[in-house]
């Protein structure tokens, strides 16, 4: 009967319900009354639904099995002003984001400095500086390697040539950690690292060195800032930024965990 009712008299569903619950308007009530006088199905539904409603409303509620009174005052959620740990969390998150940005910038800088062309120039510059200083930096791995080659040609011709093409390797392929251990890479290849465009010409070193390095041999005691120094400083900065970022991230995780636990 319900399906038939739904199909034929669905527009009276709400009116029947409103009528039963006493919230029907006068106009709708009059319309429903007219319909009920001619529709036996709807009249029967109204009567039965009224009885169901009475039965349901006569049902007492089930007694609560126990008291649900709170044994203690739980921590409340303050929605008015962020404060306390929330403020601390927000500032720590900001600091972490800033540290992460610095870290990304430093990584980018490092990548730029260790790109193939930069490595070539850096290696040549590294080679040139100790050559002029005549082995004044015995502990420097990069300098030591380059010094061995440069001292053999102390007559100033500086004809450091590229190795034969079979030995010449593109720097990154030989270097497991670009920019970290260039000296080892140089020893492995037993040649000076030169970019492809440079090796194809086998030019004298002077023609590919930066102008001031090629034209002005360094004076004794005048130690120019080398790429090695820059790289070391960059590595320290990277390490520091990584540590700061990691510590901040760890603090944020701990603070978040603690605040959720308290909540």
């Amino acid at each position: 009967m319900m399906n038939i009712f739904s199909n034929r008299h669905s527009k009276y569903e709400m009116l029947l319900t409103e009528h039963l619950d006493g919230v029907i308007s006068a106009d709708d009530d009059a319309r429903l009354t007219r319909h009920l006088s001619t529709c036996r199905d709807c009249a029967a539904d109204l009567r039965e639904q009224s009885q169901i409603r009475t039965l349901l409303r006569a049902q007492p509620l089930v007694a609560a099995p126990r008291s649900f009174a709170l044994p203690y005052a739980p921590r409340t959620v303050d929605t008015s002003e962020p404060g306390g740990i929330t403020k601390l969390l927000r500032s720590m998150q900001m600091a972490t984001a800033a540290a992460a940005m610095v870290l990304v910038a430093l990584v980018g800088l490092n990548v730029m400095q260790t790109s193939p062309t930069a490595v070539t120039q850096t290696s040549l510059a590294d080679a040139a500086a100790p050559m002029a200083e005549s082995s004044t930096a015995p502990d420097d791995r990069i300098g030591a390697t380059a010094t061995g080659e440069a001292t053999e040609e102390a007559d100033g011709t500086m004809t450091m040539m590229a190795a034969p093409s079979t030995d010449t390797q593109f720097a990154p392929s030989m270097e497991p950690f670009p920019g970290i251990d260039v000296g080892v890479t140089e020893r492995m290849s037993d040649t000076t690292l030169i970019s492809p465009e440079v090796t194809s010409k086998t030019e004298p070193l002077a023609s590919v060195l930066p102008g001031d390095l090629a034209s002005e041999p360094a004076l004794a005691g005048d130690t120019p800032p080398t790429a090695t120094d820059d790289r070391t400083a960059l590595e320290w900065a990277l390490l520091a930024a990584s540590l700061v970022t990691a510590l901040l991230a760890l603090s944020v995780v701990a603070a978040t965990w603690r605040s959720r636990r308290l909540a």
Partner: protein
Amino acid sequence: MTTPPQLDSPDAAGVQEQTWVAQALEGDIVAFNAIVERYQQIAYNLSLRMLRDPSLAEDVTQEAFFSAYRNLSRYRGGSLKSWLLTIVANRSRDILRSPAHKRTSSLEAYTEGGDPAGPWRHPDDLPEEQAERAETSRLVRKAIDQLPDDQRIVVTLVDLQQMDYEEASRITGASLGTVKSRLFRGRQRLKDLLRPVWELSTDVDRPSS
């Protein structure tokens, strides 16, 4: 503990509730527990009808009151009963929708437990009358529990707990039209499910079918 006073008018009850809310917001757990005492039965019954599991309903009711206290600053006035029951309904709905609940509810039959004649017990009732009322109550609850979730909550709110359409609409989040439609369909279905009750009940006229 503050005992809920017997208030004659809904307005007076509302004023008293707002006082309790204000005190609870200042950390007065006794004032909040007065609210709990007032509404714990309807909160438990709503959860029980929605979840059909007394143990789960107990947990949800307790969680709801904890949540209500913690979030009391989010209460923006109006019917405190509706606000509390909305928390109960939402929490119960979350459980109904959880995969874990769907897995277990299909496997386990449940019993409400307690004294089956409890709500119907009357000192003047004869034992046979008590048994008859208890059986009617059991059948009615069983029939309600067979309704679809959306019809069951509306029938529970409007018929069992005798709330108006607006309150039911607020608590369920459904429109007024949807509430009326679900109520109509729920009652229609109960009419068929409760045929046996007409044979037992002496208080309700037998429908002509």
